[in-house]
């Protein structure tokens, strides 16, 4: 691994956090906490691990990414814009009438989005279908699916987990953004899902558990997942909801709340962004 890679990706993730905050401040609607917890995982995918061609979104050789926790769309959108799928100015139209950036990912409208998500619990199944389809064509494409930890409460996730192991989908890599929070509070209090690792293990998956904000660990986990044969891999990424903005961190109340005018400069300051607004 190139020595500069990790700091470069860390800097990229920091900039994307800034972009998420500005985007959500402009839209005044959208999901802040889960976008910030997932952005390191997403940055590593889009700017290192994924094979993709932003100038050719339908390129057949591309790896696929499914944002199962579709409410974190801002995190995917800033990564897509930064990659060059569409102009960064489009981000300012998030959730507006007529915008191609819908509240939740829409494959018909946004270049680089593979399937439609937003209703939790369906994305992993779709990712399995993509992996099955690509395998029929003899490809070695990899399929990444990012889930929330609250999302694991959906029974369909476990139907998908069962089928992915049954079909030995070793091109599939699920990532759980385990930030410990959902809308109504702590996952453990709403409806406990632990041990996530043991559950996936029992379903026949290869399991890795990492710090989801440690760029080196993220890259290593993705690289390792690609070497696992005969079974799918899940990366249980321990994260902090709202990560990077001190006063958003670990607060369920910032799940679906956007930065106010008053919070914006403080949030950017917290991210080490000192630029004048």
């Amino acid at each position, binding site marked *: 691994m190139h020595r500069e890679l990790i700091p470069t990706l860390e800097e990229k993730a920091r900039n994307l956090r800034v972009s998420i905050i500005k985007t959500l401040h402009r839209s005044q609607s959208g999901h802040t906490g889960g976008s910030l917890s997932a952005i390191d995982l997403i940055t590593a995918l889009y700017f290192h691990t994924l094979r993709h061609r932003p100038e050719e979104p339908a390129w057949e050789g591309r790896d*696929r990414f499914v944002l199962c926790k579709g409410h974190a769309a801002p995190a995917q959108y800033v990564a897509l814009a930064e990659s060059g799928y569409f102009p960064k100015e489009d981000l300012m139209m998030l959730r507006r009438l007529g915008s191609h950036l819908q509240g939740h990912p*829409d*494959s*018909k409208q946004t270049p680089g989005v*593979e*399937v*439609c*998500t*937003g*209703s939790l*619990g*369906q*994305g992993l*199944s*779709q*990712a*399995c*279908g*993509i*992996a*099955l*389809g*690509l395998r*029929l*064509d003899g490809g070695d494409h990899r399929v990444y699916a990012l889930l929330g930890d609250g999302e694991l409460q959906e*029974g*369909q996730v476990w*139907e*998908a987990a*069962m*089928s992915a192991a*049954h*079909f030995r989908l070793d091109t599939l890599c699920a990532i759980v953004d385990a930030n410990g929070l959902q809308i109504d509070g702590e996952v453990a209090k709403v409806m406990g899902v632990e041990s996530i690792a043991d559950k996936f293990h029992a379903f026949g998956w290869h399991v890795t558990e990492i710090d989801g904000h440690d760029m080196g660990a993220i890259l290593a986990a993705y690289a390792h997942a690609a070497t696992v044969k005969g079974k799918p891999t899940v990366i249980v990424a321990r994260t902090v909801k709202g990560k990077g903005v001190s006063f958003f961190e670990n607060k369920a109340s910032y799940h679906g709340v956007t930065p106010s005018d008053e919070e914006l400069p403080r949030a950017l300051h917290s991210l080490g962004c000192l630029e004048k607004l």
Partner: protein
Amino acid sequence: MIQMAATRDAYGTTLLELGDENPAVVVLDADLSGSTKTGLFAKKFPERFFNMGIAEANMVCTAAGLAAAGKIPFVSTFAIFAAGRAWEQIRQSVAYPKANVKIVPTHGGITVGEDGASHQSVEDIAIMRAIPNMTVIVPADAVETAAAVRAVASFKGPVYLRLGRNKVPTLFDNSYRFRIGKGKVMADGCDLTFVTTGLMTAQALIASEVLKKEGISARVLHLATIKPLDGDLLLDAALETGAIVTGEEHSIIGGLGGAVAEFLSEHAPTPLVRVGVNDRFGTSGKAEELLKYFGLTHEGLEDAARRVLERKGAR
């Protein structure tokens, strides 16, 4: 001599042909491949058949993923478990993205028979029809089914193609050209029109013959495609015959009768009687007994015709 054949059998054999012709065709089932007849495909093309176990929600979304990877997935189970259990999956993962997924359930309606209400889907047409981007088709016989299966395989986009369990009379011959969204006038008439779908079209043809002897001239308009509705033929029927009786193996709420009522009240208010399951659940029994019990017979249609003609005359 009337030929009898089940629509699900025609589905099974047509899938086999499609499997040969088009390598993109894949099939998913949820532990009912013997009943839905996808088992034939499974045997011949095991690598393109996915038994998803008893997990319909996952099956539907997996099919959406396969479609995103360029495949043409056919998804089968019983109608109640496809449309009912996986409704929101169909809505979010299939219809919203216009995924090229063909949901082809068998065992639609009450003729499931002995299994009873838990297995008898009388709401599926209504709930599938309500979803934007969905096409909803209910063929009348095996010949039309084979043609419809081919048509939906070439059509790009989501389809709900509802099939039945039992043998039904074969009405069409091989010269029949099925087109999605197009109805067919099966018998002409000027006093009223039976607008029917699925197995009720055969009953409408009998009813039309019976009524002829009473001096009543009943047109039979078969609408295999319930969405999009063939507004042209329906409007002709309303304007030219002035009375409509719908017939379907489904609740009178929201299915063909509902669709026709919506259309007529907006475009050509016309006396209408809906024949179908009258806001009730199904029940156990033999298919033939059940059709009589629920009035889904030519006699039921004839009664409805007499009632609608009274209202037409009173206008």
